[in-house]
C-alpha cells in the first residue's frame, strides 16, 4: 500500500505495524505529530498498546525501561531538549540491554530556542551503545523503524535502537510511502526474547557491580554491538525480499566508483548532495556521494573501502563543531586513519539550526574545499 505520509506519520505507521505493547512519550516540536497519530491509532483500535502520557521525557524512557524489563515491546519518540532531558535513562536502557525502539526527530539545541533540524542532539548518544540509524526520507523512516525492532530484539544483540530524521524537511513533508503488507513476516515474533525480570524466576537488574564485574558487563555489550551489522544486514535482506528496497550495507553510494571526491552526509541534505553530484558530473567533475544509514556501529571498513584512493572527502555535518571536528567527520577520519589512507578531509558545518542547504551550496562547498586545507569550516551560505 502506498500512502502520502510525512516522516513522522511514516514512523507512526511503522510502529502501528510493529504492534508494541507500551508506548510512552512526551510532546516536543517537531516530534509531536508522531505521538498524536499513535494516540489516534490507539483510540481507533488499530493499535492495541498502552499509552503512558508521562510528565517528562526522563519518565518516558524510564517507563519503557520498566515495561521492557518485564518483556513488553515498546516505543517512544523525542527530539532535541527532550533527548537531553532523558539522557541519563537513554544510557540506562543500553546498559540494561533492553530492546527499546525510539524515534528521534533531530532539532537544534538551545539557547536560543530553535525548532529546526540540527544533528547535535543525535550525536550526543553516539557512545551509548544504542544502534543508531538515520533516515533521509519518510520511506526510510518507515523501513528503518521496522528494521530497528528486528535488530534490537535479536538474541545476538538485545540493545536499544533509534531511528533519526530531520525536523520538517522529513518530519513534516508528505511524500509517497510504500508500506509492508505483512510486517510480521519481517519482525521477530512477540515475546521471542526472555525479559530479565519475572516473578517466577527472580533476578535483580543493576545491583552494584565491583570493577571486574562491571567491566565484564561492558565487554559483553561490546560484543553485542559488534554483531549488529550482521543482524542489520539480515533484517535488511528480509525487507529487500519483501519490497526490493536495500539497506543492507548500512550506507548508500552514489557514483562513487570513479570519483575523486566523495561527499558524505546523513539525512535530508543528502538529496541536495545527490543533485550536486549530478550537476558537477554534468560539468565533468568526478564526484560521488555516500549516505550513512547505520551510524552506530559505524561502518569503518565499508567507508574506508569507498574512500580509499580518493583525493578528497567532504563531510557535510548538520551540526556545529566545537573544539573538535564534528562527529561524522571524526568517524570518517578514524576510518581513514585505521586503514592508513591519506585522503584530504574537509568538513562543513552546514544547515545548522535549520539553515536551508541547496544544491548550489553543495557545489560551492566543493569549490571552497578545493582551495582550503583539511579541517572544519562553518558554512554561512553563499
Amino acid at each position, binding site marked *: 500500500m*502506498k500512502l*502520502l505520509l510525512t516522516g513522522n506519520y511514516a514512523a507512526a505507521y511503522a510502529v502501528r505495524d510493529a504492534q508494541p505493547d507500551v508506548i510512552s512519550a512526551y510532546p516536543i516540536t517537531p516530534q509531536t505529530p508522531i505521538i498524536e497519530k499513535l494516540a489516534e491509532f490507539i483510540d481507533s483500535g488499530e493499535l492495541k498498546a498502552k499509552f503512558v502520557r508521562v510528565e517528562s521525557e526522563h519518565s518516558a524512557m524510564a517507563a519503557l525501561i520498566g515495561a521492557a524489563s518485564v518483556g513488553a515491546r515498546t516505543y517512544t519518540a523525542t527530539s532535541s531538549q527532550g533527548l537531553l532531558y532523558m539522557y541519563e535513562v537513554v544510557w540506562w536502557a543500553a546498559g540494561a540491554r533492553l530492546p527499546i525502539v525510539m524515534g528521534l526527530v533531530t532539532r537544534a539545541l538551545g539557547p536560543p530556542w530553535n525548532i529546526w533540524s540540527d544533528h547535535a542532539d543525535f550525536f550526543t548518544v553516539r557512545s551509548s551503545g544504542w544502534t543508531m540509524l538515520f533516515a533521509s526520507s519518510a520511506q526510510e523512516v518507515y523501513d528503518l523503524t521496522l528494521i530497528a525492532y528486528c535488530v534490537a530484539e535479536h538474541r545476538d544483540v538485545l540493545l536499544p535502537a533509534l531511528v533519526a530524521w530531520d525536523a520538517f524537511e522529513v518530519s513534516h*513533508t*508528505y511524500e509517497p510511502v510504500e508500506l509492508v503488507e505483512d510486517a510480521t513476516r519481517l519482525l521477530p515474533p512477540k515475546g521471542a526474547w526472555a525479559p530479565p525480570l519475572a516473578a517466577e524466576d527472580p533476578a535483580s537488574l543493576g545491583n552494584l557491580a565491583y570493577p571486574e564485574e562491571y567491566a565484564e558487563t561492558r565487554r559483553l555489550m561490546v560484543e553485542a554491538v559488534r554483531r549488529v551489522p550482521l543482524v542489520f544486514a539480515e533484517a535488511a535482506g528480509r525487507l529487500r525480499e519483501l519490497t526490493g528496497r536495500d539497506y543492507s550495507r548500512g550506507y548508500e553510494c552514489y557514483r562513487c566508483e570513479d570519483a575523486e571526491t566523495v561527499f558524505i552526509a546523513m539525512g535530508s541534505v543528502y*538529496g541536495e548532495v545527490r*543533485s550536486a553530484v*549530478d550537476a558537477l558530473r554534468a560539468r565533468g567533475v568526478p564526484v560521488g556521494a555516500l549516505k550513512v544509514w547505520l551510524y552506530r556501529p559505524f561502518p569503518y571498513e565499508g567507508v574506508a573501502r569507498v574512500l580509499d584512493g580518493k583525493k578528497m572527502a567532504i563531510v557535510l555535518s548538520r551540526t556545529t563543531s566545537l573544539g573538535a571536528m564534528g562527529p561524522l567527520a571524526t568517524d570518517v577520519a578514524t576510518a581513514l586513519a585505521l586503514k592508513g589512507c591519506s585522503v584530504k578531509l574537509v568538513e562543513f558545518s552546514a544547515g545548522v539550526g535549520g539553515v536551508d542547504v541547496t544544491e548550489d551550496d553543495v557545489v560551492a562547498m566543493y569549490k571552497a574545499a578545493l582551495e582550503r586545507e583539511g579541517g572544519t569550516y562553518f558554512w554561512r551560505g553563499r
Partner: protein
Amino acid sequence: MPETFDVVWLGRGGQGGVTAALILAQAAMSKGYYALAIPFFGAERRGAPVFAYNRLSKSTIYSRARVRAGDVLALLDPSLTGVVDVRSLVKPGGVLVVNSRGSVPGLEGLGRGQYCVDALEIAEELDLKVAGIPLVNMPMVGAVGRVSGLFELHDLLEATKAQIKAMLESNLRAVEEGWRRVEKCRC
C-alpha cells in the same frame, strides 16, 4: 536535477493550506507523479500568514530544500498581499490563483497572469467552516488543480475522498465548484 512542478500555497493559520497541498499531492500521486506536500516550517500562530508547498515530478524527488517560488502561487487570502512579498513567490513563467472576485491590485503583470475564484463565496454557500473560519482551501484545490493543467476534475475528487473524512460531500462540491468557477481575472 529533475525539473519539478511547484505550487506555493499562501494563507492564514487555520485556512487549510496544508490540506490543500496534501490533496493536490494525492491527486498527483495517483497519476504516477512523485509528489511532495510540504507545510511551512515555522512557529507561527493562528491568524499569521502561513505557507504550504507542493513539489511534483515524474521521477523521484530527492531534494528536501525549501521551495522558494511556485509555478502556481495559490493565494487563499488576498489581504495578505500587503503583508507578504507575493511577487517573489511566483516563478517567472508562473501564475497566480487567488481567492477573490476580481484581480488583486498591485499584482498586475505577474508571471503568465492571474486566475480568480471566489472561494469564500463557495465555502459560505456550502457552509464549510471549522472553528468559525471558512474553509476556502477546498475550492482552491479545484481551481489550482485545473489551472495547473496536470489533472482532471476526477483526479481531484478521488484525492479528496482519500484524504478527507469530515463533511466529505460538501468538500467534494467545493472542489468541483472551484474547478468550475476559476477563470482568468478580469482586471
